[in-house]
C-alpha cells in the first residue's frame, strides 16, 4: 500500500517537483537505472524511478555507449566477429535500459515533466546515434570483416547480423567519398528542417480551424457529442484573453478538424452545409496558400530524397527504401496496390450508389459528396448490417476475451499464463502475467494495460521493457500491450466492442512475436523485421478472433453465462465487410500517392504540387466522393517523418500475408492444425529478423504469398453479400 501511495505521488505530483543541487547528488547515488535490477523477471522497479532520474541516466548512458564504441574501435587486435559485431551487441546497456522505460511511459503514463524531457531529448538522442553511424573507425572494422565474410565460418544468424550491420553503415553513406558525404549531410539537414516545418505547419493548420456553433446548429448531434463540443468551447473560453474572444466562445459549441471531433460530427450532423465546411477544412490542410502552406515543403522534401538516393546510387528514393523490405522494387509495390485498387474502386462505386439511394428515398435533392459519406454510410450500415453494439458487448467482457486469446495461443503452441498479483508496475490498470511454454519453462512477461486514461496516448501498441537475447545467457523479454478501451463504470466488468476484441488479438499477436522470439542477438529479436512484414504476426492472430468456433468459446454473457447466439455472430462477421470499398480506396489512393512522390527522379519541375497530386489521383481514376486518406499537405506519415516514405503500402502488404497465411490453416480444415502452428512458431514468431522475411514466410507457407485470400476477406472478390 505504501508503495502504491508513493507511486501515486510520482504520478500526480511530478509536475510540481523541483530539483535542487542537493537532491540531484542524492538522486545520482540511488538512481535505479545505475543498479542491477534484482526484481522478479527483470521487470523495471517502477516505484523507484522518479522523473529526475531519466536525464542523468540518458546522459550517462550515451557517454558509456560512446566509450564502449571507442573501446571496440581502438582494440589493437585485428577485427573478429566476436570483438567487433558481438561486442557491439553488448554496448549501450544503460541507454537501452533507460530508453525502454522512458519511451514506454511517455506513451502510456506520461506527465508534463516527461513530455518536456521528451522534447529536450529528441535532438540529443539523434545526435548520439549519428556519432555512431558516422564513426569511420567502426565502419572500417565492420567492412574488413564483411570483405572476409566467406572465410569467417559464421552461422546463418551471424552472417545476417554482419550483413545488416554493414548495410546500416552503407545506407547512411559510409562508402561515399568526402565530397559526397558532405552533400549527403547537407541534404539530410535540409530534409530535417523541412520535415520539422511540415509538422509544425500541419499542426498550425489543424489547430487553426474551428467550427463555432450556436445551439441552433446542433441538429442531429447526440448528447455526448454536444457535451464534448461544449467542453472544447469552454476550454477555449478559459484560454481566451480578449473580450472579443470571450464573446466568441461563450455558450458556443466548437468542432475541430481533429478526427475525434470531426468524424462524430460528419456522422451525426444534419446540417449538410456545416459538414461541408468542416470536411473541406480537413482536406485543405496545408493547401491554403498561406504561410503554413505545405505544398512546396512536401515537393522539396521529395526532391531532396530523390537526390540523396541518386547520390547513393539508387534510381529513386523508393528503390533505396524498398531494398530493405519484402517487396523489393517499386514495380512490385505498384503491382500489389493496383491489383487491389480496381476491385476496391468498383466496390466504392456501389457504396456511393447505395448511399445515393438513401438520399433519394429521403426525398432530398443532392448528389453524394465527400462530406456526406460518414452520415449516409452509417444509414446504409444500419439498414443492411445493423448489429446492436449494446447487445453485443455483454458477451465480450475483457476477462473473457483475454481468456479467449490465451486459449487460442494455448491451443496453437501450448502456452500458459499465470497472472502475477503481487507485482506492481507503472499503473494499477497494467496487469502482469507470466507466460510459460508447453514444457512449463519461462518464456517471458506479458503486461496488459487496456483502459484509456487522460495521460495515455491514443491508439493501441505493443512495446517492450526488456528484450530477448541468448548471447550471454538466456535473457527473456518483458512485453507490454497498451490499448485505449473504455474503462468499466463502477464495479461492472469492462465490456468491449468487437472492434476492441480484434485490436486486442492484433496487439497480442505483436506480443507473441516479442515473447516467443528466440534468437542469439537482441538486435535481431522480436519485431525487428521489415515494416511490410512485422504486422503479419499481429494481423494473422486477428483471424482467430473472428472464427465462430473460437468466438463461441470465449464470448459468454457476463451475467447469464449464455454463449453468443449464432445469429449475432453471423451478423457480426457480415458487418466486417461493410464500407470496405471506401476504407480500401482511401488507403490505396494514399499509398499510391506516397509511391508517386517517392519514385520521382529529382529533376522534375515540381512547382505545382496540386497538379502533381491531381495527376497522380486521376491516373488511377479516384472518384470525387473520396479523398485519399492523406492528401499531400497533411501526409505526415511520409513528410513529417521519413519512416513511412515509400512505405505506407506496408499495411496492406502485411494484410496479404495474414489473409494468405490464415488460409493455410483453413485449408487443413483445422484452425489449430498442430503441424502448421509449429511452423508458424518456428519460422515466424521465433525468428525475429535472423532471415529474410520472404524466406521465413515461404518456410511457413510452403510458397510465396498470394493476394486472393485478402480479396475474399475484404469482400473485394466480387462476391455479393
Amino acid at each position, binding site marked *: 500500500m505504501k508503495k502504491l501511495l508513493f507511486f501515486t505521488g510520482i504520478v*500526480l505530483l511530478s509536475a510540481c517537483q523541483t530539483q535542487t543541487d542537493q537532491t540531484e547528488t542524492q538522486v545520482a547515488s540511488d538512481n535505479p537505472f545505475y543498479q542491477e535490477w534484482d526484481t522478479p523477471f527483470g521487470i523495471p522497479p517502477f516505484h523507484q524511478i522518479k522523473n529526475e532520474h531519466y536525464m542523468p541516466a540518458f546522459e550517462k548512458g550515451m557517454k558509456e555507449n560512446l566509450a564502449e564504441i571507442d573501446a571496440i574501435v581502438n582494440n589493437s587486435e585485428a577485427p573478429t566477429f566476436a570483438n567487433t559485431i558481438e561486442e557491439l551487441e553488448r554496448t549501450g546497456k544503460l541507454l537501452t535500459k533507460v530508453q525502454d522505460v522512458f519511451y514506454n511511459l511517455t506513451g502510456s503514463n506520461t*506527465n508534463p515533466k516527461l513530455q518536456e524531457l521528451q522534447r529536450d531529448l529528441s535532438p540529443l538522442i539523434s545526435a548520439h546515434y549519428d556519432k555512431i553511424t558516422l564513426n569511420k573507425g567502426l565502419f572500417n572494422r565492420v567492412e574488413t570483416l564483411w570483405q572476409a565474410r566467406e572465410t569467417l565460418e559464421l552461422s546463418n544468424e551471424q552472417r545476417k547480423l554482419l550483413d545488416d550491420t554493414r548495410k546500416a553503415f552503407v545506407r547512411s553513406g559510409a562508402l561515399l567519398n568526402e565530397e559526397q558525404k558532405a552533400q549527403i549531410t547537407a541534404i539530410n539537414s535540409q530534409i530535417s528542417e523541412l520535415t520539422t516545418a511540415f509538422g509544425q505547419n500541419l499542426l498550425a493548420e489543424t489547430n487553426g480551424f474551428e467550427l463555432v456553433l450556436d445551439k441552433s446548429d446542433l441538429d442531429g448531434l447526440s448528447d455526448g457529442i454536444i457535451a464534448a463540443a461544449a467542453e472544447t468551447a469552454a476550454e477555449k473560453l478559459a484560454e481566451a484573453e480578449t473580450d472579443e474572444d470571450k464573446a466568441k466562445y461563450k455558450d458556443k459549441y466548437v468542432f475541430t478538424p*481533429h478526427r475525434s471531433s470531426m468524424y462524430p460530427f460528419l456522422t451525426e450532423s444534419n446540417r449538410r452545409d456545416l459538414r461541408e465546411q468542416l470536411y473541406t477544412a480537413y482536406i485543405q490542410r496545408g493547401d491554403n496558400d498561406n504561410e503554413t502552406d505545405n505544398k512546396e515543403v512536401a515537393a522539396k522534401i521529395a526532391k531532396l530524397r530523390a537526390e540523396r538516393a541518386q547520390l547513393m546510387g539508387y534510381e529513386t528514393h523508393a528503390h533505396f527504401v524498398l531494398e530493405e523490405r519484402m517487396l523489393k522494387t517499386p514495380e512490385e509495390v505498384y503491382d500489389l496496390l493496383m491489383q487491389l485498387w480496381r476491385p476496391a474502386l468498383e466496390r466504392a462505386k456501389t457504396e456511393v450508389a447505395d448511399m445515393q439511394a438513401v438520399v433519394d428515398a429521403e426525398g432530398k435533392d443532392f448528389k453524394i459528396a465527400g462530406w456526406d459519406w460518414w452520415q449516409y454510410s452509417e444509414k446504409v450500415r444500419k439498414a443492411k448490417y445493423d448489429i446492436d453494439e449494446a447487445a453485443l458487448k455483454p458477451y465480450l467482457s475483457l476477462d473473457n476475451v483475454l481468456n479467449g486469446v490465451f486459449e487460442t495461443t494455448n491451443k496453437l503452441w501450448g502456452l500458459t499464463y499465470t497472472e502475477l498479483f503481487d507485482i506492481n508496475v507503472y499503473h*494499477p490498470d497494467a496487469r502482469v502475467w507470466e507466460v510459460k511454454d508447453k514444457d512449463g519453462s519461462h518464456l517471458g512477461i506479458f503486461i496488459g494495460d487496456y483502459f484509456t486514461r*487522460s495521460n495515455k496516448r491514443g491508439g493501441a501498441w505493443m512495446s517492450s521493457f526488456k528484450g530477448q537475447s541468448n548471447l550471454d545467457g538466456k535473457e527473456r523479454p518483458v512485453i507490454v500491450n497498451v490499448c485505449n478501451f473504455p474503462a468499466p463504470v463502477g464495479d461492472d466488468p469492462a465490456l468491449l466492442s468487437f472492434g476492441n476484441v480484434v485490436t486486442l488479438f492484433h496487439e497480442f499477436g*505483436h506480443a507473441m512475436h516479442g515473447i516467443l522470439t528466440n534468437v542469439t542477438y537482441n538486435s*535481431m529479436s522480436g519485431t*525487428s523485421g521489415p515494416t511490410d512484414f512485422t*504486422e503479419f504476426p499481429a494481423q494473422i492472430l486477428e483471424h482467430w478472433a473472428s472464427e465462430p468456433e473460437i468466438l463461441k468459446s470465449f464470448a459468454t454473457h457476463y451475467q447469464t453465462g449464455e454463449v453468443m447466439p449464432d445469429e449475432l455472430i453471423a451478423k457480426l462477421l457480415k458487418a466486417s465487410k461493410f464500407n470496405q470499398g471506401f476504407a480500401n480506396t482511401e488507403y490505396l489512393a494514399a499509398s499510391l500517392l506516397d509511391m508517386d512522390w517517392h519514385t520521382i527522379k529529382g529533376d522534375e519541375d515540381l512547382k505545382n504540387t496540386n497538379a502533381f497530386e491531381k495527376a497522380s489521383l486521376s491516373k488511377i481514376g479516384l472518384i470525387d466522393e473520396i479523398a485519399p486518406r492523406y492528401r499531400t499537405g497533411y501526409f505526415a506519415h511520409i513528410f513529417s517523418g521519413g519512416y513511412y516514405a515509400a512505405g505506407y503500402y506496408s499495411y496492406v502488404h502485411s494484410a496479404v500475408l495474414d489473409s494468405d497465411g490464415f488460409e493455410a490453416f483453413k485449408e487443413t480444415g483445422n484452425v489449430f492444425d498442430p503441424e502448421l502452428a509449429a511452423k508458424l512458431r518456428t519460422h515466424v514468431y521465433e525468428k525475429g529478423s535472423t532471415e529474410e522475411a520472404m524466406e521465413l514466410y515461404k518456410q511457413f507457407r510452403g510458397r510465396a504469398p498470394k493476394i486472393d485470400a485478402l480479396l475474399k476477406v475484404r469482400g473485394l472478390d466480387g462476391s455479393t453479400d
Partner: protein
Amino acid sequence: MTILKTFAFCICFFSGFVAFSHPQDELVILEIEHGQLDFPDQKIKAEYDAALKRQRMRQLAAMPSQERFWLFLNAGIKHIIPKGLDHILFVLGLFFSSLVLRSLLWQVTAFTLAHTFTLALAALGIITAPGAIIEPLIALSIVWVAVENCVFKETNKWRPFIVFGFGLLHGLGFAAVLSAFGLPENNLVASLLAFNIGVELGQLIVLFTTAALLWLIRKKSWYRQWVQIPASLLIAMVGIFWFIERVVS
C-alpha cells in the same frame, strides 16, 4: 546494437484495418490528428483511484479464501481503530451513558444489529444512500447520545431504540467504506461477514479498554460530575464540529 535498433521499440497503432508505426513519427501524427494531451489533475486522480480499486478487486478475487477472510476482518477492525474516530466516539458516547452493564449491553446490541442490517443491505446493492447526507447525520448522532448523557442521569427506556436508529446510519457509513475497499463478487457474503466481525471486534476493544481504564473510579461520587459529563460534552463538541465540517464540504 543501436544501429539496427534505430527504431528502438515497435509501436503499432491501430486505426481501422491499418496498423503500424514508428514512435517519433507517430507522436507527431497523433498530436496532429488527435490533439495534444492535457493533464486534468482531478480527472487523472479519479482515474487512478478507480484503477487502484480494480487492481485490489482482482487481487481479492484471486486470493485463497482464508487469506481473504483475515484481510476483511482486519479491514473491519481498522475501520474502527484507528480510522473510524467517529464510530469510536459514538461507542464512547454509549459507554458514558450508563454504568449498568445490562443497559450498556442492550445499547451495544441494538447498535450492532442495526449497522449489520444496513451494511448488508447496502453492500448487496439493495439500498444506496448518498454520503453527503449520511455523514453529517452520523456526526449528529454522536452529538445526540452525548447530550443525552448529560441530561439524564440514568438511561431511559427508549434509548436502545434511538441507538438502533443511529446504528442504521452508521451501517450505511461502513458500507461506503467497504464499497470503496471493494467486495469480491465471488465471495461476497463471507467477506461481508468478516468485515462485520472486524467492526464488532474493533468496537469491543474500544469498550473494554475504556472500561478497564475507568474501572476503579466508576463508583466514585464525583464520577458523573468530573468524568461522565465533561467527557460527554467533549464528545458532543467534536460531533458538532464534524457536523459543520461535513455540511460545508
